[in-house]
């Protein structure tokens, strides 16, 4: 039954139906509505047995999750942005210990300058941590992915991060079909830990490993990620069979048949891109979209397959690696088929800057004209940049550039 729900609410309700036993979190926008809702459910007894712990930091949130998961509890937490960075040591640790924690990441930019709005910098910062990273396109998918996330995590003993765009999804009210408790229960068996802290069968978890075995340990973790490439689609198929919804999986191809130009992207921006593609298709252009649903493990084969007919590939991504360029683009390049399509990266939507259908169509137009550079920044205010560069060149003490830029923009920026 479809309900008009805020994305955070949909996620909270779905997580609750997964029967987590320990939920802990530290508040950070835009994750707050999720954990507030779960906290309320625990408080009023709707979600039981469950321990809800509002801890003193994200570092503690992930640490409590580690302890709870190691003790055999189904464990959930949520964070965003700075919070993810503050817990990053524990993020790596949870994966290293093979603990199937599920975490919602309400994607948000990373400061400085501080910015609460959406982009994917946070998720990209932990791409090597050993977590499975799934990206939701819609609130429906965000909710559904959590059910699949627990299933994947517990099957593989690998933590899973469900990434959903902050505000754009978390705070947007959309029609969502909440999954029935009975369906969750049939899909998600009780957690059977691979290893557990149990006085009746004591083990030492978390040994110090030297050069003699460290590489093997890391390689085994890599193999588990590769196993996930098999399991993610099959879990999604099983989920689809139960619910009729195509949530999850590795990639979401859209109108790729005979597409010469393919836009690759992740998260909620895919909806906008699809609208643009639909418009360009109306105009007879052979364009399509490839949504990457699983960023880690990266579905090299699936991406390669999907792009095998493309001549031009444009990666639109909400993050980049300073001094290098696209992060997703780098992985797409690695996965590009032997046919060798032209690859362009458009960095867009940083810090919550809107990406409109018109913007996407503009990208496609430039691509078609051959004027899309290998790396570009959507709607970049070149004048602001130029003035700051000039100031910096003129003086060693030109002041903090973020503030200068802000001043320029406030003063009319390019029009002055």
């Amino acid at each position, binding site marked *: 039954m479809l309900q008009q729900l805020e994305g955070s609410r949909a996620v909270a309700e779905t997580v609750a139906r997964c029967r987590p036993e320990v939920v802990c979190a530290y508040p950070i926008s835009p994750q707050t509505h999720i954990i507030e809702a779960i906290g309320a459910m625990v408080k009023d007894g709707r979600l039981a047995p469950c321990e809800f712990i509002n801890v003193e930091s994200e570092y503690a949130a992930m640490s409590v999750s580690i302890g709870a998961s190691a003790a055999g509890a189904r464990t959930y937490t949520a964070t965003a942005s700075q919070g993810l960075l503050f817990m990053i040591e524990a993020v790596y640790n949870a994966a290293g210990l093979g603990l199937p924690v599920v975490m919602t990441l309400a994607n948000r930019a990373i400061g400085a300058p501080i910015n609460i709005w959406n982009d994917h910098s946070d998720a990209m910062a932990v791409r090597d941590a050993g977590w499975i990273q799934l990206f939701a396109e819609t609130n429906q998918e965000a909710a559904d992915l959590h059910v699949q996330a627990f299933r994947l995590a517990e099957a593989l003993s690998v933590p899973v991060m469900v990434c959903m765009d902050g505000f754009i999804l978390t705070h947007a009210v959309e029609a969502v079909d909440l999954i029935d408790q009975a369906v969750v229960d049939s899909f998600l068996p009780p957690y059977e830990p*691979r290893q557990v802290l149990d006085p009746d069968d004591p083990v030492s978890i978390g040994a110090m490993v030297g050069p003699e075995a460290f590489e093997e340990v890391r390689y085994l973790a890599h193999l588990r990620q590769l196993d996930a490439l098999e399991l993610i689609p099959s879990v999604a198929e099983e989920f689809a069979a139960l619910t009729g919804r195509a949530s999850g999986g590795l990639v979401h191809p859209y109108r790729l048949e005979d597409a010469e130009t393919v836009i690759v992207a992740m998260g909620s921006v895919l909806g906008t891109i699809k609208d643009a593609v639909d418009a360009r298709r109306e105009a007879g252009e052979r364009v399509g979209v490839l949504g990457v649903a699983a960023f880690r493990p990266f579905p090299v084969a699936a991406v390669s397959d999907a792009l095998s007919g493309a001549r031009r590939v444009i990666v639109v991504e909400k993050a980049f690696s300073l001094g290098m360029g696209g992060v997703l683009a780098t992985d797409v390049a690695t996965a590009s088929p032997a046919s060798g399509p032209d690859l362009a990266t458009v960095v867009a939507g940083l810090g919550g800057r809107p990406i409109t259908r018109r913007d996407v169509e503009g990208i496609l137009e430039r691509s078609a004209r051959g004027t899309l550079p290998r790396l570009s920044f959507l709607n970049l205010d070149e004048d602001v940049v130029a003035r700051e560069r000039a100031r910096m060149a003129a003086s060693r003490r030109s002041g903090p550039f973020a503030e200068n830029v802000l001043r320029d923009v406030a003063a009319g920026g390019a029009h002055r």
Partner: protein
Amino acid sequence: MERPFAITLPVGSSRANHTGSWRVERPVYVDRLPPCNDACPAGENIQRWLYHAESGDYETAWRTLVEENPLPAIMGRVCFHPCETACNRVRVDEAVGINAVERFLGDTAIARGWRLGEPGPDSGRRVLVVGAGPAGLSATYHLRRAGHAVTLVDGAARLGGMMRYGIPAYRLPRAVLDAEIERVLEMGVEVVTGRSVEDIAAARDEFAADAVFLAVGAQLGRRVSIPAGDSAKVIDAVTFLHQVADDDPPLLGRRVVVYGGGDTALDAARTARRLGATDATIVYRRNRAKMPAHAEEVEQALGEGVSVRWLSTIERFEGERLLIEKMALNAEGFPEPTGELEELDADALVLALGQDTDLSLLEGSEVHVADGVVPVGESMMTDVPGVFAGGDVAPSDRTATVAVGHGKRAAHGIDAYLAGRAFERPERHPLAAFERLNTWYYADAPRTHRPELERIRRQTNFEEVVGGLTEDNALFEARRCLSCGNCFECDNCFGVCPDNAVIKLGGADRYEIAYDYCKGCGICVAECPCGAIEMVPERI
């Protein structure tokens, strides 16, 4: 449980890692000689019998004790306990009351009728023991244990020697003396009383003895020449005490002066008080600090109303007056006459100036006598093969305890002689010095003093002055023992090892070191309360 590779490990697997290879020194359990044992003239294993007494196992404690000394009830009364003087606990608070516990064990044994062990298998050899004092009785006991037949000959009517005829009953009740002598005789001894041996060689032949132990004691009161009128009553202390012991006390009058400063002088003065003397005065030529008598005996005597004239010598005894010269200590601490004279009223004078041995039985024998005593070797054998001597006739301190020790050593010497073996004294462990103890682990506890009879009562009868410990107090006292140099299973080593390298064997089996894991840190040695572990360099 399935365990993720290298992340998760099975418990206790580190036992595969033998950290003992790090060690440069290893701890080793040792037994050191406790100072009490070291000081005991009778060679008792005091620490060991206290160990058993601590657990309330008095019979085992007593049996351990009588391994060395068959007369604990007597020793618990008359021994001057050099063990307590040597006791390391003196440096913590006060010495352990070893003597009191010994007496408690001895009395308990008598009360419960515990008997000494069976004699050893018959060796077919016979030993003549001359003198049934502490040396002779001790030798008899140890000889019987070794399986040798013993003929015990004594000149007095009853056995016990100076224990009966020199020590007053208020210090050693006769029932106790009789009980412990009787227990030795129960082992099967041929006893001849009232028979003075006059010729050692003849007696050896007469009793067909393969060896002889000579232990006749020092029973001659030493006399000095003091000018005295015919009416003056002068008697030596040995004779006095002997007569009292025979229930035939001499009449000394109300005012008795005792001349001398040893324990016998005190015994005589205190005995005189009990016989009715209103004034019992000791005249001694030096001061109290120089007095050879044991301090607690002095204390008791003073408490009973005995008075002492320090730094005084007796010049003359005329009528009912003694003429006394005052003395002064010179720079070397020796008394010198001052010429100053005093008078002291006296009905009788008892001379307690020392005792001599009566060695007339050696006249005509080849046994060498020097300075009134018989020189002996390590095994207590004189220069005549098969003839041994001990107690007061051998050069040594003249105490009952020394005599008991002599008796034991002579018995071992005789046993070796009869077997044609060389005599060897058992090896002594190095001393358990105070510095090796970690006294932190001993709580402070004052010693329990034995009750003393109220003074008023003990002035008029021969009831025992010093009472015994109750069981509670004996236990308390035994548990004050520091067990110097000998493990008493306090579990410290087992507990303080950071490497779990001490194995507790349980029961009374103590501990052993698991050298596979011991890194040689030495904490067990440092924290052993009694110094029973030492570090030795590792052999590489």
